[in-house]
């Protein structure tokens, strides 16, 4: 008997297929008709006009959190990144010193013993509040938790429900969750979430297919134990949902990769990983086996370094790149404590306690979850609701947002469901084109890419672009040739497939995918935990490897996987085509605001940028040199 249990998957039938694929059964789905009551409350700023238009911390609303904490037995405060959770923990202690001793911090970089202590204390009801990250999303249930606060967008309905469900965990009781917006427009998301919960719209988990990186890892794992016979394992692998479409050619290429190491100069090579001994594929080298054991897993994080007190005592772990930027006597925050960096010794960062008020908070990377498609759709509906003049039953959040939405309307336009808003704005940074499809970050990245590509065919031009869940921005040093006369053409479905192909090659999307793939596929060696000396001669970066493979071995399996993942997960032709058709069928509104609008502001301040160019490199360098001359 094989069971799968889930509370928050939208595509149950497909999930069942994935689960049962290896045993070739059809199975049944049992759905309990228990309706879990969830009460969602938004936390509002007193004056929406004064609440920031962009941001991700939400500390301005911290005073509003205190009565919520006071009013329930235990409260979990979910923060989207570890760095921000450190800030919240400190800020809470500053505004309410009496919380000292009854609140705690819980995230993945905190020492495990401390995390377990927090979890025990939660069970026993000893804590008033715990500031946590996804580290408390799953698996553990604490009866004393009566209330949950979500700071910032949860980015998806399923995750929001998951977190809400941490409170009122007994049958029959109500889950109480508060949504605290980190910038004003985020309140729209609260309205969208409420609607999605009401209509029971939950995200699908789309199964990934033909992940060669994971297969390489699996085969290496078999090879470090008793070894494997390809004929036997090929049959086994093919029974899984993920690899049922694998071809014999692909399989052979993988075997070739792990035994011969792909392209090589035959006479001058001593590649060694998996060896074939009497037909059995095995790893015999102890160091290679050990290195593999250390790297088993598919959750990729940056290389970490231990943090210890000079006087002894372990604090936690921190990203190596963060420590690398510190100078001795710099103060940073970890585990809710201010620590002075002293030195690196034996691959450990040595610190001492600091009383300094100022400290650097590590900004853990990651934390850029895209809004799910479902939430995007809900958001568009809510926006439509906002633009209805005579609707008396608008969501509470939209009523609160009215002054901001009015300003958007006054400066530019408030788009209806069938409208796509485009804003041309000129600032000292250059010429901006803002487009708001409200489709979520991933789709926006693809759209920005295709639009930039199409415009770049009109004239030699260079773009840097940024996006959030609401829209995207193309920024250039020259006017962007988009107007009434060509805009429908730029959003047309014609030549879509070819344009997707070409634009994917001219951006960084595949490079970013390759970052995880190269680690899972065993190409990046991150060092042993606790090692005294780094294996320096094996140091490498995913970015360098991406360049090397692209130039010298473009057919490499793992590079191909990176492009396939971009095409399937992000640049999916059908989804883009549907969206373009939706835009074509509706109306495109182009405005020329004199000032930055509430919609554009959060995108403009985002520093994570992509680029695309059709200018000659020499021309770009010449322009930059001229600029250099002007600046100095």
């Amino acid at each position, binding site marked *: 008997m094989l069971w799968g249990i889930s509370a928050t998957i939208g595509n149950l039938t497909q999930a069942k297929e994935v689960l049962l694929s290896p045993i070739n059964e059809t199975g049944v789905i049992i759905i309990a008709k228990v309706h879990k009551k969830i009460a969602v409350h938004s936390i509002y700023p007193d004056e929406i006009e004064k609440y920031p238009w962009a941001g991700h911390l939400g500390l301005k609303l911290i005073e509003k959190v205190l009565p919520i904490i006071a009013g329930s037995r235990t409260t979990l405060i979910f923060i989207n990144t570890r760095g921000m959770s450190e800030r919240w923990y400190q800020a809470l202690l500053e505004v309410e010193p009496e919380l000292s001793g009854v609140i705690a911090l819980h995230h993945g970089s905190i020492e495990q013993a401390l995390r377990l202590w927090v979890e025990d204390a939660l069970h026993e009801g000893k804590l008033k509040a715990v500031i946590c990250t996804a580290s408390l999303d799953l698996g553990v249930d604490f009866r004393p938790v009566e209330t949950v606060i979500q700071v910032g967008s949860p980015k998806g309905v399923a995750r929001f429900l998951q977190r809400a469900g941490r409170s009122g965990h007994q049958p029959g009781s109500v889950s109480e969750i508060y949504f605290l917006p980190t910038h004003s427009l985020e309140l729209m998301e609260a309205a969208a979430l409420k609607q999605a919960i009401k209509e029971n719209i939950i995200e699908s988990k789309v199964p990934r297919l033909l992940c060669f990186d994971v297969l390489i890892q699996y085969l290496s794992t078999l090879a470090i134990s008793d070894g494997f016979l390809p004929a036997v394992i090929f049959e086994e692998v093919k029974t899984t949902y993920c690899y049922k479409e694998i071809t014999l050619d692909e399989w052979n290429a993988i075997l070739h990769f792990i035994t011969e190491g792909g392209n090589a100069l035959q006479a001058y090579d001593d590649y060694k990983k998996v060896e074939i001994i009497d037909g059995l594929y095995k790893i015999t080298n102890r160091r290679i086996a050990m290195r593999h054991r250390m790297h088993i897993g598919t959750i990729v994080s940056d290389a970490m370094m231990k943090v210890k007190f000079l006087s002894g005592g372990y604090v936690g772990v921190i990203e190596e790149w963060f420590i690398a930027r510190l100078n001795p006597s710099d103060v940073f925050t970890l585990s809710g404590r201010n620590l002075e960096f002293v030195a690196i010794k034996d691959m450990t960062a040595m610190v001492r306690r600091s009383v300094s008020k100022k400290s650097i908070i590590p900004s853990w990377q990651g934390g850029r979850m895209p809004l799910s498609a479902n939430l995007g759709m809900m958001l568009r509906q809510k926006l439509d609701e906002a633009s209805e003049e005579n609707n008396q039953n608008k969501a509470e959040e939209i009523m609160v947002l009215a002054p901001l939405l009015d300003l958007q309307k006054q400066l530019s336009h408030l788009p209806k469901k069938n409208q796509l808003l485009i804003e041309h704005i000129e600032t000292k940074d250059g010429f901006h084109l803002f487009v708001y499809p409200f489709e979520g970050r991933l789709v926006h990245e693809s759209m920005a890419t295709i639009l930039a590509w199409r415009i770049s065919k009109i004239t030699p031009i260079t773009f840097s672009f940024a996006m959030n869940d609401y829209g995207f921005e193309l920024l250039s040093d020259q006017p962007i040739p988009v107007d009434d006369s060509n805009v429908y053409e730029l959003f047309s479905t014609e030549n879509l497939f070819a344009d997707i192909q070409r634009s994917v090659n001219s951006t960084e999307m595949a490079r970013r995918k390759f970052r995880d793939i190269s680690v899972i596929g065993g190409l990046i060696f991150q060092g042993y935990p606790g090692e005294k000396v780094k294996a320096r*001669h*094996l140091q490498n970066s995913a970015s360098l490897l991406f360049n090397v493979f692209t130039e010298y071995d473009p057919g490499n399996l793992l590079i191909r996987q990176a492009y396939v993942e971009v095409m399937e997960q992000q640049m999916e032709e059908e989804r883009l085509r549907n969206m373009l058709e939706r835009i074509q069928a509706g109306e495109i509104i182009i405005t020329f605001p004199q000032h930055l609008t509430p919609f554009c502001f959060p995108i403009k301040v985002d520093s994570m940028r992509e680029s695309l160019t059709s200018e000659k490199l020499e021309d770009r360098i010449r322009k*930059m040199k001229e600029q250099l001359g002007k600046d100095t």
Partner: protein
Amino acid sequence: MNDFIKHTIFNNSFLLSAGRCIFWEEEKALILSDLHFGKTGHFRKNGIAVPQTIFKEDIQRLTAQVQYFKAEQLIIVGDLFHSHANKEMELFLKWRNDFTQLNIQLIIGNHDILAKEWYAEANITCISDQLQSGPFIFTHDKAECTSVKDCYIFSGHIHPAVTLSGNAKQSLKFPCFYFTKTYAVLPAFGRFTGMHTVRPVKGDTLYALAQNKIMRL
């Protein structure tokens, strides 16, 4: 690859090549840094399958540069080899046999850890810290060099790169030759290497390597 720019120091002509090395006309010497030969081999021996084509291309580029400038000697300012010996070194030895006339001096870098005998067999003269030739000093890591009055230093080690930024949040990054008033840093010759962005101050001169061309910034 045959693009170069002349840079003059103390009336000596240094031709900075887009092939990531310097030809010193007066001495008919090719100055190179951070070749990291054997790096792909080292990775492969440890089960990490990087393509060796990049190493082959490095060797071919070296040949092309020697022939183009008709160099009679090589001055390598460190990190000729990446790590312990592996089979890729045999390709280098084969190359060495084709260029027996070439005098090779290596200023030992932090990666150069092969046995003395190995260098002797390859007919490479090893210099442990720094080499002086006229008013010029050659060393691997400038930070560990003892400077001599009125002398100019050539070094490597950091794999310098330059970041150019323009309007509209645009930026570009290239490997570069980095010249200050008292010392120069060469880009890494080997292509399987990372980069470190340098922050030039007034009076420094940079030459960027972009798409097989070299340009002064």
